[in-house]
C-alpha cells in the first residue's frame, strides 16, 4: 500500500462515494494549476510531486531498494 495523507484519504473516500463529487473533481483537475476547494494535496506536475509533503528517503529505504546495486564476486575456483 502506498503512503497517502489523511486529507487525501478522505478525498478518495469522497470520490468513491459520490459520482457527482468525482465528476466535479475531474472537471476542475484539467485546469492548471489544480485548484482544489477542499485543500487536498494533489500534484499535477512531476516537480510538484517531488515537492509534496510526505516521507523522505531516510524513512523509506527498505532493503528492496538498496539491493538494486548488489554485486556478486564469483568464486575464483570453478564449481
Amino acid at each position: 500500500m502506498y503512503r497517502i495523507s489523511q486529507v487525501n484519504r478522505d478525498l478518495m473516500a469522497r470520490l468513491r462515494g459520490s459520482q457527482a463529487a468525482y465528476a466535479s473533481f475531474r472537471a476542475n483537475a484539467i485546469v492548471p494549476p489544480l485548484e482544489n476547494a477542499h485543500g487536498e494535496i494533489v500534484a499535477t506536475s512531476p516537480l510538484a510531486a517531488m515537492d509534496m509533503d510526505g516521507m523522505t528517503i531516510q524513512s523509506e529505504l527498505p532493503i528492496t531498494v538498496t539491493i538494486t546495486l548488489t554485486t556478486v564476486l564469483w568464486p575464483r575456483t570453478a564449481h
Partner: protein
Amino acid sequence: MTFASLDDDDLPVEGDGRRAWAPAVPTPADVLGATFAADATWYFVGAAIHRQGWKIYISATVETYRQIVPPAIKLLYGLSIPFKYLRTLDLVYRMNAGLLGYSQIGKCIVAYVDADRIDELVDGLSSVLVGDLKRGPFVPRLPSVWPGANVYYRYGSYVSRYIEFPSGEMADDRDHPFNSHVVGIADPFRRFGGGENLTARDASLARFPIIGEFCRSGKGGVFVGLDLNQTVPTEVVIKLGLRNGQVAGDGRDAYELTSREASVYDAFRARDLDDFIPEKVDTIEDEAAFCLVTQYVDAENMATSRAAGEMTIDMMMDALKVVRTVNASGVVIVDAKLGNFLHDASRCWLVDLESAFLRGERGPMGLPGASTFEVDGLSLDDPRFDEIHFLISCLYRPSDDHAGSGFKSRRIRVREFIASRSDGDAVETAAAGLLKAVLGEKP
C-alpha cells in the same frame, strides 16, 4: 581499468563504483591558492559574518561537478562570499541520491550571501553556468534563482537550527523557502524570475493527478495518481524519472532510464509476457521528467512480505517461474530482486523494468555495481544471471543492509553468503538449495 580485469586481491576496499569516479575534486588551494578548512564532507572558504541570511545552493551531477567547481568558487571568492562545497564525487553521488537526506539533494556548493552581493552573484552565475554546466538535480521544495537554473535559494540560519527575529526565534525549516516572510524580509530573488517553481506548475499530469507515493529519491519517485479518463475513481502508478538527478555511472539519468523502461513494457507485450507485468497506461514527457503511467496492482511487495515473515516457498517459486519464463522469451530482467515482485493470493507481477534488455542487445547497465558481475566470467549474458540475483535477494536480510554507505558492502561472495544462511528459516533453506543447484553444486 575495468572491473572485469581485476583480480580479487586487487578489488578496492572502499567500494567498486568509486573507481569510475575517482578523479579528485579540486581543493580551494588548487583553484584559488587560498587557505581553507575542511571536514569529512566539505571544503570551507571564508566565514559568514551574520548568524542568518540567504543561502545559495548550486547543484551538479557527478559528471558536471568537477567542471562547475573551479569557475563557481572563483566567482564566490572574488565577491568575498563565504562558501563550502563537497569534497568528493562519491559525496555528490550520495547527496543527489538522497542518501544524505531528501532535503539535501542537489546542495553541492553552498554560499552564504549578503543581500548587497546578490545582483553581482546572480549575474556571475548566469554567465558561468551555461551549456553542460547548467545540469544539476532539483533541490526539493526550494525555488530556483531564475527559471531553469541549477541554483536554488532559501533564507535560513548559518549557525543553528533556529532563525532569530526581534520577538523570538523559530525553527529553521530546511524544507521551506519562505522563512524570510516570517521575519519580514522581502525575497530579493523574485526579480530574477525565481521562486516560480513552487507555484507555476505546468499540469502535465493533470489527467493523472498524484495523491500519494510509494517512494521518492534523487532520481525521481514512484507515486499513485488518479486516472481521470476513467468514469470511476481509478488509481494508477506513476513513475517519474527526473532529468539530471541521480546519474548512473555511464551518465544516463532517470529520465532516460524511465523512457527506456516504457519501451521494455512494449517488448514484454510483443512476447506475450503481459500477464507478468502491470498494464502500461500512458507515458508523459515534460521538461522535468519522463512519466510512465501503469496499472495500479493491489498486491503485496514480496520483499515486504519476506521482511514480515509472510512469504511462502510457493510465492518464491511463483516469482522464480516468472523469472524463468521471461528469460526463456529472450528478456534479461537484470534487477530481478525480490522487491521488484508483487504477489496476491493468486498471481505474481514483475515491476521496475528500467534495467531490462533483450538478450542479444547490450543492456543499459549504467549502474556501476552491475558491471562487477562480470568478474571471473559470469556476465549478463549468462542465462543464470536473473535467477542468481533473485535467489540472493531472497536470502538478503535487513542486517545485510548498509544504506548510506555508497557502494561499499554491496558485493557478495556467493559461497560465503550461502554458508552464512545455515541458520535460516524454511524459505532461506529452500532459496539456498535452489541457488546451489543453479550454481551446479549439490544442494
